[in-house]
């Protein structure tokens, strides 16, 4: 009898999970723009994975020279035209997305654990020296203009893709720390946190099992939006030459190189710039949708 009951309750558990997923999708899909954003992001991710197979001239992504095809405007053969070395711009833009996604994911995944743990700690120990140290450090990092800080770090180290990731991470973690700090402070007064304290739960449990799960909506929304903004920041760094170095097809570098040839060879700058716009837009719209999921109706 016990086993059957156990199985029934398990079936119920699975049913509830499926219902939850359906409900989440319902809330997300009510906003057409978020679905559009999701589509953009999925298409871009899909195309970066299969870049080698779906692009017409995969060799254009690396060292390749073909002066007979150089500086050709957009045609059916090269839909985004070719650059001064004869490389196909369309292929380079698709490969460029790869690096943009790499930098976005690495930064966000590095920054979230650090910022969240620091924010939780500072919030829970509000009023003690722990909080003072953490929050003042956050203030210091936030007071320096972001791009300047990133540029300074990048020029101190040798400019490269990895170093630009490090630089962006160093100035990005304070936002998460502050966000989670605010959430923790407001949640400390909630009855369920008090109840856990009264029951005798330890501090670790309260921070990670009671408070953190309730911060996830804000963290997730911000993370999705940040994916777009990190790409923008990374492209800005490459634009000034401090990010990925040639021949890596980074979108920012492509815009920088192409802007020298405006307005005659307009396709060299416009299409990579358009690529940046599309990917940032996609993440922004997706972030809106994620926010809608957690909004209480």
């Amino acid at each position: 009898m016990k086993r059957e009951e156990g199985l029934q309750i398990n079936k119920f558990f699975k049913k509830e999970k499926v219902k939850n997923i359906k409900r989440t999708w319902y809330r997300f899909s009510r906003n057409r723009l978020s679905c559009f954003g999701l589509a953009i992001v999925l298409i871009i991710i899909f195309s970066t994975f299969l870049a080698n197979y779906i692009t017409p001239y995969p060799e254009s992504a690396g060292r390749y020279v073909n002066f007979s095809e150089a500086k050709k405007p957009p045609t059916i053969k090269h839909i985004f035209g070719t650059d001064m070395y004869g490389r196909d711009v369309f292929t380079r833009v698709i490969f460029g997305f790869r690096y943009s996604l790499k930098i976005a994911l690495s930064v966000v995944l590095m920054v979230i654990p650090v910022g969240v743990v620091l924010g939780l700690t500072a919030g829970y120990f509000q009023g003690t020296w722990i909080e003072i140290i953490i929050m003042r450090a956050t203030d210091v990092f936030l007071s320096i203009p972001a791009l300047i800080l990133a540029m300074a770090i990048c020029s101190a180290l040798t400019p490269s893709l990895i170093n630009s990731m490090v630089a962006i991470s160093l100035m990005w973690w304070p936002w998460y720390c502050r966000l989670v700090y605010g959430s923790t402070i407001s949640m400390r007064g909630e009855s369920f946190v008090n109840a856990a304290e009264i029951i005798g739960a330890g501090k670790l449990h309260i921070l990670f099992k009671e408070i953190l799960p309730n911060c996830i909506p804000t963290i997730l929304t911000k993370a999705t939006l940040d994916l777009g903004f990190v790409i923008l920041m990374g492209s800005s760094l490459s634009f000034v030459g401090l990010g990925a170095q040639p021949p890596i097809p980074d979108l920012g570098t492509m815009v920088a190189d192409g802007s020298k040839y405006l307005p005659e060879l307009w396709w060299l700058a416009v299409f990579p710039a358009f690529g940046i716009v599309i990917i940032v837009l996609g993440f922004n719209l997706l972030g809106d949708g994620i926010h809608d999921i957690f909004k209480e109706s």
Partner: protein
Amino acid sequence: MQQIPILDIRDLYLQFKAFGGTLKVLDGVNLKVWPREVIGVIGESGCGKTTTMKAVMKIHSQSNTKISKGEILFKDKDILKMKTEEIQQVRRTGISMIFQDPTAALCPIFTIGAHLRDVAKYSIGKEKFKREELNALIIDVLNKVMLPDPERILQNYPLQLSGGMRQRVCIAMNLINNNKNLLIADEPDTSLDVTIKEQILNLLSNLVHEQKLSLILISHALGSVRNIADRTYVMYAGSMIEVAETGELFSNPLHPYTQGLIAAVPKLIGGKMKGIDGSIPDYFRPSMGCRFHPRCKFRKSICEKEKPPFFVVNQEKKHEVSCWLFQK
């Protein structure tokens, strides 16, 4: 001359669209308010009282609310068919509403004086008031609601006042325009203390008689309506199930739900309180027929099939019940 009711809600059906389908919230609401009458509406949370009043004031979000059937007649004109300018005019000079939480009803960044001046500007109309006249009007209204030291209160912000005082300010905002016909008070006393509750309810009752208004008082506490309502409706799961003169309703409840409610109220004479078995229906898939029948001890087979109409039980005391047990 034949009197027409100030407000006449006829057979109102309202649905919300949500995940999981449509919520059939209002299932045929019938309500009549005569001039200079105080009506009580009793119902527990989720029965649809606030939804009905919001429909009267037309403040539902248009995107996911649908009124599939019914009319709301304000002085014989259908509110549901009115255009925006007409309904604005009704809100200015016809019906006004006091909400449950006075803290949420007042904007925390404006002073009380700013609130009242705003209301005066929009409700009395575009006539230019000299500053002194406006101030005199506002202070007069604050005196009517028995707020001490009105000049000082005008400078205060809502968070500097206590709950009872905020509720009085909300009532004052509704009295600025003298041409009102109907006041709707949505659980005005729920968030207040016992001694203040009584003061506010008495204040409402006195003002309504002075200004010759009608009042709809909504509450989930039976004691609140007993002293000031002339007639009381009982609402359950989206429709009115019983109505009578207040004294008659409390001394002779007929519908099984009303009897259950009265048995559940803690009494000063002591004695066990009895809950009502079951829970409110799932509005996605409400039962056919009478929505109370799954919880009713006296249900018959017809209760599952057809929704009962109102049967008049006592014409003199205006007692009507929507229950098959009272079919003649």
